[in-house]
């Protein structure tokens, strides 16, 4: 027999089509419009998972986002996802899924042995048991994780793609139940830009699961008519299958739209999910309320569900949750479940109403229909193994903390429970709004808003349909008005029957029938019982936040949607303090779990960061360069020739540059154009050295400090005209130096008449270095004399190469005769090619970052590893570059005692005693390698390389008082590689210390 629990008619499912799905290897049938949960119930599948700690059999408790038990491993392979709520999985043809947290099978689970020994697993069990020895924790954890299940993530890359969307609106309405629909319509009619966001696939919220009438017609007809009207409003956008999961500052709300989760696979170019970041002028929260269970012994058997869920499965999905039902309630509202189930053909075995004398209209109607109302009774315990077979009921005493008389059994396969409602205040609370506890409703309600937000309907404690409609209309109209649309007049509210409800009896937990009998679960997902809460209190955990962490109450994927409030109410009874004083734990985003895919959006793989290419990049590719990332830039590392090792390629590039000529792409250096009558003054203030006397057509090396005296950046700056300079920065600090100059000019020195503009991307740059550099340049350039006399060291001239106007700077980073050529970026490639061509007969070779690094280490030039945020000019041997006659940023700090200490680390060179031994970068330098720890640190290695020029490994290092220790032997210890290398301290300039080559 197929779908034995499907009701013959009714519900919002497509009965004209049957679709197949697979759960735990078995095939079942369902209809479009089903959720996985409703389809499983239709097929009589009630056992859907095992609990986290005790491996108790669990069934479906709810029909919405609050579901704690029915967590499913959905799909297979690279699309599999763990912990998905069966109540929110839309059924599609061919859906494949598995239960979680069981081994070897759901029906026969070895982990259930935990339940037999549950006395060994009290609250805080893991903290108490697995602490010693501490080093074993990782091993325990692996075993516990395996037992605890919680599903598996996919191990292959996600084949789907995700989108991010930024949106602005006047009114964001969250929830499309009666209050949300009215709010959206009221705001929309005034012309406001509205976004209406609904978690489920269809608008209507609770109305979809009720048999209520609006204006004398089924509520669903009214929902359809509102939907039709909304679709005609041009400024209104409806987002279904969209969960609002986070509420942040200045009314930023994050939504996740499940664009294609209801399909077997997304369509071509269709994202699987879309993350929305919505800035709303006003927000209307119409998030409804979540029914809460009543706690009693063995309240977790499959077949025990929330009364509202039983009603929803019957009315919305046309599924009987069982054949014989008992209702356990403390309020009138749940009686509708009994009526709806009875009409669907379910035998009502009894209504257990904990109120001593339920005399309202609804109990009267139940009695008139022939149902037995057990007034003042409670369910003491349930029976069954893998599913519910019956309950014991017994008379409660007046206080609700004990029983009177004897128990009697009621056979049933479904128990519908209602302990009242908890308004879904999660988003309101995330928005920093304050809650208040309402004694009459025994619930936390929104109180003081901290942002422009209004709560409407059940979330505000207005549970009746009539109140929701009125509330929604008013909230929508006033939100529109506050956003500048309309006069705040709400739209007319449709007429509905209003059946008065008698008060509820506040009852959180029913006593056990006898000490030790049954388990009373407060939190199903984390297996937290009333007894665990009592134990935690005995052990001193009185704060609700501590209680949460110690017992795990309210943690996990459901974040305690059905358990938090009940848990803290029970705690309040245990500690003897009123509920508002105990308070709630903090509500944090996300409301329901959000996939990493949606969070990351399109920024994966090649799209994580933009890639910056210099104008010469195509040439480097053609020349076979190996590239390295320098920030976002791709820079050539070296240009290997066939058969060469990496080191051979680097050595060749270095030796060729020192012997003939090399060319390197330096386009990535930061370039800042500085203009204005106060440009010199700016340079004098930001650089340590003086700039007033720099002539037009000359460059100077400059050093920049932070205000705390630490070296920030260095580079050359060239005077192009009387009030026109070009500053260069290191590649890595290009952006920072620009913001730094802007800060000082705008915030501190607005009186300076200077403009700065970043021109890094506007100019391509190539550097020529080596004895033949001038020959190459002279052969390539037109219209300018580049002889030593016309273009001396640190000189600047303009000329043309390949017909392109270029800027020529005689500067050098390698210690060789060197020129830097800047060309407009669009022509950078042409100029580079012209230089390479002109260099052919002079033995030119391109060199990359490795050779560049080797050349500069040989010359003792500092870069990022030495400018590590701790070094002063004196540490780096630049004391002479700090002008004594003028002030500059950071200069005052240099005279602070800490920066003048005698044992500061200073820049030195290192050579190994055995030339081929590598001095590992990051090594600590110690004086004696055989000392027992702690060993005094003498310094550290900052840069290293193999110098083909010197035929030796070399390094730069920062060593305590290092300049006075030249000649001393130290040991470079590298804990990472386990190597210890004997090194000799040398002057940091290891090649051509006189600087003769670059001045010729």
């Amino acid at each position, binding site marked *: 027999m197929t779908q034995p629990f499907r009701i013959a008619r009714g519900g919002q499912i497509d009965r004209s089509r049957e679709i197949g799905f697979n759960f735990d290897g078995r095939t079942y049938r369902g209809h479009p419009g089903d959720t996985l949960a409703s389809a499983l119930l239709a097929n009589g599948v009630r056992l859907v998972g095992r609990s986290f700690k005790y491996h108790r059999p669990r069934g479906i408790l709810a029909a919405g986002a609050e579901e704690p038990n029915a967590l499913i491993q959905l799909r297979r392979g690279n699309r599999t996802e763990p912990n998905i709520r069966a109540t929110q999985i839309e059924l599609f043809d061919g859906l494949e899924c598995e239960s979680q947290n069981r081994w070897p099978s759901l029906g026969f689970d070895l982990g259930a042995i935990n339940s037999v020994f549950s006395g060994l697993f009290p609250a805080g069990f893991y903290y108490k048991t697995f602490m010693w020895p501490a080093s074993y924790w990782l091993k325990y954890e692996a075993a516990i994780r395996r037992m605890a299940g919680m599903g598996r993530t996919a191990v292959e890359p996600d084949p789907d793609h995700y989108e991010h969307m930024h949106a602005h609106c006047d009114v964001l309405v969250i929830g499309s139940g009666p209050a949300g629909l009215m709010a959206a319509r009221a705001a929309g009619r005034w012309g406001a830009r509205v976004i209406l966001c609904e978690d489920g696939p269809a608008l209507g919220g609770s109305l979809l699961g009720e048999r209520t009438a609006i204006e004398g017609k089924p509520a669903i007809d009214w929902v359809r008519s509102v939907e039709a009207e909304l679709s005609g409003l041009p400024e209104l956008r409806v987002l279904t299958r969209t969960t609002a999961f986070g509420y942040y500052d200045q009314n930023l709300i994050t939504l996740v739209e499940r664009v294609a989760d209801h399909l077997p696979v997304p369509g071509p170019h269709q994202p699987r999910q879309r993350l929305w970041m919505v800035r709303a002028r006003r927000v209307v929260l119409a998030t409804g309320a979540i029914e809460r269970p009543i706690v009693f012994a063995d309240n977790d058997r499959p077949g025990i569900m929330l009364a509202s869920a039983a009603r929803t499965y019957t009315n919305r999905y046309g599924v009987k949750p069982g054949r014989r039902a008992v209702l356990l309630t403390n309020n009138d509202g749940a009686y509708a479940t009994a009526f709806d189930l009875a009409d669907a053909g379910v035998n009502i075995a009894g209504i257990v109403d904990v109120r001593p004398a339920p005399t309202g209209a609804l109990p009267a109607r139940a009695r008139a229909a022939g149902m037995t109302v057990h007034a003042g009774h409670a369910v003491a315990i349930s029976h069954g193994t893998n599913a519910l077979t019956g309950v014991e009921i017994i008379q409660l005493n007046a206080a609700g903390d004990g029983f009177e008389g004897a128990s009697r059994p009621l056979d049933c396969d479904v128990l519908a429970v209602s302990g009242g409602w908890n308004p879904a205040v999660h988003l309101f609370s995330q928005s920093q709004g304050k809650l208040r506890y309402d004694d009459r409703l025994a619930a936390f309600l929104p109180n003081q808003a901290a942002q422009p937000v209004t709560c409407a309907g059940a979330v505000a404690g207005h549970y009746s349909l009539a109140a929701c409609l009125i509330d929604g209309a008013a909230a929508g109209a006033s939100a529109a008005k506050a956003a500048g649309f309309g006069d705040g007049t709400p739209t007319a509210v449709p007429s509905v029957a209003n059946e008065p409800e008698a008060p509820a009896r506040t009852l959180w937990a029913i006593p056990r029938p006898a000490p030790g009998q049954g388990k009373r679960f407060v939190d199903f997902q984390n297996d937290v019982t009333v007894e665990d809460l009592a134990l935690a209190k005995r052990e001193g955990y009185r704060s609700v936040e501590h209680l949460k962490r110690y017992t795990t109450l309210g943690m996990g994927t459901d974040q305690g949607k059905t358990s938090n409030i009940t848990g803290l109410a029970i705690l309040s009874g245990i500690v003897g303090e009123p509920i508002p004083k105990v308070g709630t734990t903090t509500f944090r985003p996300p409301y329901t779990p959000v996939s990493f895919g949606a969070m990351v959006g399109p920024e994966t793989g090649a799209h994580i960061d933009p890639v910056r290419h210099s104008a010469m990049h195509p040439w480097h590719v053609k020349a076979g360069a190996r590239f390295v990332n320098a920030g976002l830039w791709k820079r050539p590392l070296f240009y290997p020739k066939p058969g060469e090792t990496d080191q051979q390629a680097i050595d060749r590039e270095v030796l060729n540059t020192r012997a003939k000529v090399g060319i390197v792409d330096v386009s990535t250096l930061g370039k800042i154009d500085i203009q204005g009558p106060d440009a010199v003054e700016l340079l004098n203030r930001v650089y340590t050295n003086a700039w007033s006397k720099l002539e037009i057509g000359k460059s100077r090396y400059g050093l920049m400090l932070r205000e705390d005296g630490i070296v920030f950046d260095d580079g050359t700056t060239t005077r192009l005209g009387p009030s026109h300079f070009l500053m260069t920065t290191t590649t890595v600090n290009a952006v920072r130096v620009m913001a730094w100059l802007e*800060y000082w000019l705008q915030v501190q020195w607005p009186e300076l008449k200077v403009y700065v503009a970043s021109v890094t991307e506007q100019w391509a740059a190539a550097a020529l270095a080596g004895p033949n550099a001038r020959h190459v340049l002279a052969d390539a350039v037109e219209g300018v004399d580049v002889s030593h006399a016309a273009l001396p060291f640190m000189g600047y001239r303009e000329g043309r190469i390949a017909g392109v106007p270029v800027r020529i700077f005689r500067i050098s980073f390698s210690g060789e005769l060197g020129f830097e050529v800047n060309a407009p970026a669009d022509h950078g490639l042409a100029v580079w090619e012209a230089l390479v061509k002109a260099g052919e007969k002079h033995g030119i070779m391109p060199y990359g970052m490795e050779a560049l690094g080797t050349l500069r280490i040989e010359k003792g030039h500092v870069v990022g590893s030495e400018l590590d945020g701790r070094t002063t000019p004196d540490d780096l041997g630049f004391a002479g570059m700090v002008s004594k006659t003028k002030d500059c940023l950071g200069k005052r700090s240099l005279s602070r005692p800490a920066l003048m200490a005698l044992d500061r680390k200073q820049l030195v060179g290192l050579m190994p005693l055995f030339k081929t031994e590598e001095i590992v970068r990051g090594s600590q330098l110690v004086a004696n390698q055989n000392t027992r720890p702690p060993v005094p640190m003498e310094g550290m290695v900052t840069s290293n390389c193999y110098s083909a020029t010197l035929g030796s490994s070399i390094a730069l290092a920062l060593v305590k008082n290092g300049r006075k220790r030249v000649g001393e032997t130290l040991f470079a210890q590298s804990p990472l590689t386990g190597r210890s290398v004997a090194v000799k301290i040398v002057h940091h300039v290891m090649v051509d210390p006189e600087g003769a080559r670059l001045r010729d």
Partner: protein
Amino acid sequence: MLLIDCPWCGPRDQREFNYGGDGTVVRPPDPSAATDEAWHDYIYIRDNPRGSHVELWQHNAGCRRWFKVRRDVVTHEMQGSAPIGRELPPKP
């Protein structure tokens, strides 16, 4: 994610801005005359009152202007912004 009111571009998302630190710090006008203590305070010491702060921000992905913002660091309420050289609205 804050919504920051740039005095030139209007309210924009926080991701367009750089935070520039405490906007109340005053640089000693003549650093060489400042005592070690005064200079140390300027470099390192920042007040962190509960409530309203004056902050510097730069609209780095927009007009690149630095400006002042008054913000409550407890509630994250944005209490006004002003160009450098103009007064912020008073502390509420």
